[in-house]
């Protein structure tokens, strides 16, 4: 097959890319990461399917596009196929087209195109990559082995074939080897198994004695049981003897104690603790007696104090009063000081009163002043008087002023009348009226006449003259017309528009003008009717003038007519004014008379009022000279004087009060002192000294009384205690007496003697009890005192010890026997226990199973490895027999060709040698390591090419991919290789991937039919 084109939709860095690979040898040249490996993966993917997404060969479409692509492949017969694959399950769906039609058996076609070779052949046989063409030319043994391996791999097509065999062997040997294999894993397990079996057998042998051991144990147990019984018996007897021996001294003590007891033992009637009780009573009685005596002394002392009298004792009964006086001392002292101050104030006030009275004038006494009513009501009355007087006075003034005004008016009116009288002409009033009317008529006729005259010519002109419109309208029209013309001429539309506005303005002006003309015309027509016939009008006018006696119309000036008329009109007005003025003057004169009468009446009223005021003053006790306006000042003075008098009175009252207080205090003190016969020095003005004197006396009395009270209390207490203590003393004495009686003793000494004796006997009895108890306890309280006494009664000293010694000896012997038996039984039991427990055996058995399992597993693994190895060897042999000859034949041909006939043959490994050798043209056989580096490379390539031919030589010729295979070579070696590939390219398509320009160039030089595809980074 021949891949002619690559169409990549999306794969790794490629997206929508087409690459032509029609030439037998195509070099893909581009730097690292340009995508050469991607292309290789792409071809492989299209042919064999997409790898898993977790695979290292997974090239997701990094630049976009669908993860798919197709190859155009020609088979050896030249038929083109399009092989397309898309991402999908199971490697992705495959579509194969031939002549544009999809083939139903695409998978088969692709397999046919690939010469039925699986992917690993494509990858391992047809691809040469970086790891190949290694440095081979080393001399040492390892290197030699490597060379052998490499050539072998090249020839067999499975690069790891030999390694795999080695690996399997190594793993198998790790598990087990027959020779010196004791450290091997399986061996160890088996050895342990053997050991365990042995151990178990031993344990089994031991446990065979189980029954015998059990019997022996039973024998020992019986013996022990018997000896235990005997021992118990002996021990019991020995214990009794031991008790005798141990308790013998106690028995002896008891006997001794019993002998010391008196024949008659005193009973229980003697008081308990007699000595203690006696001593206690004696002590208490002594204490009580001392106390009674002490109380007697105290009572005697205290009684004197309790009966001592107290001076001024009664004063204590008036302590409250005394305290009142003492408290009043301060107040009294203040009063004394204040007295003088108040006297000065009184004197000052006396002076002030005198001064006020002097200011009011003679004859005013304090009483008068006080009686005078200057109250606000009174002052309001005065104010009413004042108002009355003021009103009367004001009225008088008003009346006087009115009279004066009337006088002035009369004088003025008189002047006016005089003047008017002088101005009046000597004609009547009717005449004047008639004449005025005529003059007016004349004036009207004159006007009509004049108008008629004026209208005559005007009417004729009105038809001849055409009214001319105002000038601005004409000018405006012309300018507008000119503008309009210019606009048309110069084709200026805006100017045209402006001129049209101008026309509009002129139009409006013309309308106004016509309207005014029409109005004027109507006026003229009216006037013409009114003023027709001027001659008639003149006649009318002349007649009037005639009546006025003024000549004809032509001689009379109209202005004169007017003047005549005005003059006559004035004359009429003057005559009216004079009449009025005369009337007014008469009225004024009448008023003057009335006014004078009023003034007189008013003066009389004033006088009456003044009389009444004086009467009020007299009744009010005010001085009659007073006017209403100075009553207030007088009242003020009265108030001042009255204030001074009041102040004086108050001061005097206070002075009196103080004096009284001082006096009262002195009297109180004096009275108290008198009541208690306390002499006071009357010469002392200050009563406080007296008070202090009394106070001191009171204190002294108090103190003394307190002392006496204390003494009395003490006396009372002492008497009570004395009584109590005496009673207690009597009680104790009684007790002592009872005690003595109880002991039947006459006195204390006898009691004491008897008591000592009694106590001694009691102690002996107790000791005896104790010893008897001890003895009973020694016999485990199994016997009464009597039984014990009987037991000991018949025994003699020394007899017991001998018996005990004999018994101990027997017992010791028995114990030894028992011990021996017991030990033996223990040993036997331990032995049986060992057999019983079988714990170790159980453990060994468990371990044996484990080791067996492990050994089985290892043995199985070993077997698998050994069979795998065997299978590989079989395959290897088969290869050497069936396939190797063809590979060698083909390789020899290639080798000869590559070496230009210098080497003619390759000899495969034999049973004796495990390496290839070559034969040169001189028929000398050489080992590979005897060859130059270049020749080694050629040999390697020849073997690979031979393999390719042998594998794929019969079917489709498959493309060979050289992926940086020459990168490890020096230029010379690379050249050789490149030439070899160029040679191969004549049969198989060769695709070269390189990032080195020199490699690219080598191939370009080596082949005439080479195509270079530059890949961008």
């Amino acid at each position, binding site marked *: 097959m021949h891949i002619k084109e690559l169409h990549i939709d999306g794969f790794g860095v490629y997206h929508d890319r087409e690459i032509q690979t029609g030439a037998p040898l195509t070099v893909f040249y581009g730097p690292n990461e340009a995508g050469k490996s991607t292309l290789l993966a792409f071809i492989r993917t299209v042919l064999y399917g997409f790898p898993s997404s977790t695979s290292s060969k997974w090239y997701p479409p990094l630049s976009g596009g669908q993860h798919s692509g197709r190859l155009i492949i020609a088979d050896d017969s030249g038929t083109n196929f399009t092989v397309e694959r898309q991402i999908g399950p199971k490697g992705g769906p495959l579509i194969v087209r031939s002549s544009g039609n999809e083939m139903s058996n695409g998978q088969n076609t692709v397999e046919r195109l690939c010469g039925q070779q699986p992917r690993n052949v494509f990858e*391992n046989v047809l691809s040469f990559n970086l790891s190949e063409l290694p440095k081979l030319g080393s001399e040492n043994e390892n290197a030699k082995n490597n060379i052998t391996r490499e050539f072998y791999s090249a020839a067999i097509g499975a690069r790891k*074939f030999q390694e795999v065999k080695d690996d399997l062997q190594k793993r198998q040997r790790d598990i087990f080897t027959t020779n010196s294999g004791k450290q091997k894993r399986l061996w160890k397990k088996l050895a342990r198994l053997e050991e365990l079996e042995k151990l178990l057998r031993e344990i089994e042998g031991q446990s065979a004695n189980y029954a015998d051991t059990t019997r022996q144990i039973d024998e020992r147990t019986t013996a022990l049981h018997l000896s235990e019984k005997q021992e118990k018996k002996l021990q019991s007897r020995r214990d009794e003897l031991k008790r005798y021996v141990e308790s013998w001294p106690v028995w002896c003590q008891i006997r001794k104690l019993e002998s010391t007891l008196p024949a008659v033992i005193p009973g229980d009637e003697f008081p308990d603790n007699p000595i203690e009780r006696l001593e206690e009573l004696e002590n208490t009685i002594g204490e009580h007696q001392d106390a009674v005596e002490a109380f007697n002394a105290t009572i005697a002392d205290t009684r004197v104090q309790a009966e001592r009298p107290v001076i001024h004792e009664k004063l204590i009964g008036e302590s409250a009063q005394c305290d009142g006086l003492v408290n009043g001392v301060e107040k009294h002292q203040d009063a004394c000081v204040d007295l003088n101050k108040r006297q000065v104030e009184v004197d000052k006030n006396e002076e002030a009163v005198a001064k006020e009275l002097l200011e009011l004038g003679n004859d005013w006494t304090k009483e008068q002043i006080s009686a005078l009513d200057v109250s606000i009501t009174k002052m309001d009355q005065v104010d009413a008087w004042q108002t009355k007087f003021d009103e009367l006075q004001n009225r008088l003034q008003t009346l006087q002023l009115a009279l004066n005004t009337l006088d002035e008016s009369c004088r003025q009116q008189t002047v006016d009348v005089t003047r008017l009288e002088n101005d009046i002409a000597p004609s009547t009033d009717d005449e004047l009226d008639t004449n005025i009317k005529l003059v007016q008529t004349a004036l009207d006729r004159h006007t009509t006449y004049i108008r008629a005259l004026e209208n005559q010519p005007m009417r004729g002109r009105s038809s001849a003259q055409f009214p001319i419109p105002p000038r601005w309208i004409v000018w405006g029209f012309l300018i507008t017309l000119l503008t309009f013309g210019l606009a048309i001429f110069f084709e200026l539309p805006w100017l045209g528009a402006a001129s049209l506005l101008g026309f509009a303005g002129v139009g409006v002006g013309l309308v106004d003008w016509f309207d005014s003309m029409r109005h004027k015309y109507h006026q003229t027509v009216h006037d013409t009717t009114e003023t027709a016939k001027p001659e008639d009008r003149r006649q009318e006018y002349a007649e009037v003038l005639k009546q006025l006696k003024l000549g004809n119309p032509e001689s009379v000036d109209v202005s004169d007519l007017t003047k005549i008329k005005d003059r006559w009109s004035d004359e009429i007005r003057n005559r009216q004014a004079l009449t009025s003025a005369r009337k007014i003057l008469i009225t004024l004169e009448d008023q003057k008379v009335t006014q004078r009468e009023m003034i007189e009446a008013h003066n009389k009223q004033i006088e009456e009022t003044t009389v009444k005021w004086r009467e009020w003053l007299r009744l009010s006790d005010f001085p009659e000279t007073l006017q209403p306006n100075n009553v207030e000042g007088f009242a003020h003075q009265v108030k001042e004087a009255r204030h001074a008098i009041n102040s004086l009175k108050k001061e005097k009252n206070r002075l009196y009060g103080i004096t009284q207080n001082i006096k009262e205090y002195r009297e109180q003190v004096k009275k108290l002192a008198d009541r208690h016969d306390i002499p006071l020095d009357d010469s002392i003005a200050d009563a406080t000294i007296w008070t202090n004197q009394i106070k001191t006396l009171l204190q002294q009395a108090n103190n003394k009384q307190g002392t006496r009270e204390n003494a009395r209390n003490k006396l009372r207490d002492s008497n009570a205690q004395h009584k109590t203590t005496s009673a207690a003393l009597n009680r104790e004495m009684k007790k002592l007496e009872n005690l003595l009686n109880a002991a039947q003793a006459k006195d204390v000494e006898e009691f004491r003697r008897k008591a000592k004796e009694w106590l001694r006997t009691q102690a002996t009895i107790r000791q005896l009890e104790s010893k008897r108890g001890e003895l009973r306890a020694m016999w485990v309280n199994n016997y009464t005192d009597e039984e014990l006494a009987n037991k000991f009664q018949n025994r003699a000293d020394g007899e017991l010890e001998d018996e005990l010694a004999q018994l101990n000896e027997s017992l010791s012997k028995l114990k030894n026997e028992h011990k021996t038996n017991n030990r033996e039984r223990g040993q036997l039991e331990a032995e049986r226990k060992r057999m019983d427990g079988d714990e170790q055996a*159980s453990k060994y058995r468990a371990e044996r199973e484990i080791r067996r399992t492990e050994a*089985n597993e290892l043995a199985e693994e070993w077997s698998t490895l050994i069979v795998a190895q065997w*299978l590989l060897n079989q*395959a290897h042999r088969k290869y050497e027999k069936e396939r190797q000859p063809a590979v060698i034949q083909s390789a020899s041909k290639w080798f000869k060709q590559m070496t230009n006939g210098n080497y003619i043959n390759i000899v495969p490994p034999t049973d004796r040698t495990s390496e290839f050798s070559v034969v040169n043209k001189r028929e000398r056989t050489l080992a590979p390591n005897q060859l130059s580096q270049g020749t080694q490379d050629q040999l390697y390539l020849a073997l690979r090419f031979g393999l390719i031919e042998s594998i794929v030589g019969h079917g489709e010729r498959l493309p060979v991919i050289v992926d940086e295979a020459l990168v490890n070579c020096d230029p010379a070696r690379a050249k050789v290789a490149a030439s070899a590939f160029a040679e191969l390219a004549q049969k198989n398509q060769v695709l070269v991937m390189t990032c080195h320009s020199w490699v690219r160039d080598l191939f370009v030089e080596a082949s005439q039919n080479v195509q270079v595809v530059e890949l961008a980074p």
Partner: protein
Amino acid sequence: MFRFIHAADLHLDSPFKGLKETNQTVGDRLRRATFNAYTTLIDLCIEKEVDCLVVAGDVFDGADKSLEGQLRFVDGLKRLEQNNIRVFICHGNHDPLDSWRAGLSFPDNVHRFMSDTECVKIADDGVPPYAVCGISYPTQEVKRSLLGTFPKRDWPEFTIGLLHASVGAADGHQSYAPCSVKELTSLGYDYWALGHVHTGVILQDSDPWIGYPGNPQGRSPRETGERGVYVVEVGDNKQIKTDFVPVHAVRWEQRDVSIDGLETVEQLDERIHASVDEISEEAGDRSVVYRIHLVGRGRVHHNLATPDSAQELARRLNDEGRDDHEPFLWCAGIKTTTASEINLDQLRKGNDAVGDFLKLKEEFAQDTTLPEQLEPELSKLFKARIAKPHLQELEGALLNDAQTLLKKAEITALDLLVEEDPDLAS
């Protein structure tokens, strides 16, 4: 009404098979497992207040001569005596009469059948009278049927036949005292308490009831699941009601875990853990010893290619701390029979060495003389003095199933030969 318990194949103090190294705690517990199951059985007898216990042989492994097994067995019987429970025992191929320790004294409540068939009738126990007929193996090798020695029933009492025997085809068990269901039926008994087959099975559920309770404690990876005894209630009209009660102390489990479709070891871990959780859940409050069998084809096969890797997985499972408390969970091993996803058919078409290798393997697989060809290869190990006593059985098994061995060898070699990653997008 009358109640009894039917047990068999106690195999007291016999070690667990198929176990590899355990830690101290688990090891001790496993060793005590048969005893613990026996104690549970005794407790059950007392709790259920049964009238008798029948044991159909193989109380202990005679080959192991475990004295402790015998002594503790007697201890349990003494407890039953204290509770007035009778015991009927027959001995089987593993504990024939001659394997029992002489001088071992059984309590009075126990009736051991000897080498002559005997029928014991019990009439004064306060329950309806019943009879137990049985026979013990005098020695291990009893290959003939013992049924002829049993009397045909001509008495009215409810009758139990007690026998250690292979009834029908005893799968996986050597054939001892063989007989058939028909023969057993013909004797006219009511209940055949059989022993020998380790997996509980009821051969006939009435007239008479015939069955094996199985062993009360599984002892090898094959003896999985619940193990126990039958509690049998016999009604007044002799109707039988059996109730299987598990008494095992430790439960064996085995799970196949497929690596199909797995991409990573983590995913495999997850899948294994899911299985372990399932096992743990099923076991409830009992301890479990389990084996994982990895099967299928997938990418993770490469991670399992060496035996160490499986051991490592097992170690990791056991390191997770589920082994040091009661109930414990112990992985006894991970067996792998996985393969990579290599398309063998495609590889086989290749004209290269790999193709040749595969084609040759196929040829051998068809070759009937394969065991003979392999034997000399294997003999290096199996005929070695040190290995012979221990691996003989394995050798036989391997050669009997030479195809499997060949397949394993193929996978092993191929794993090394085809290093490329040929996985297709799945």
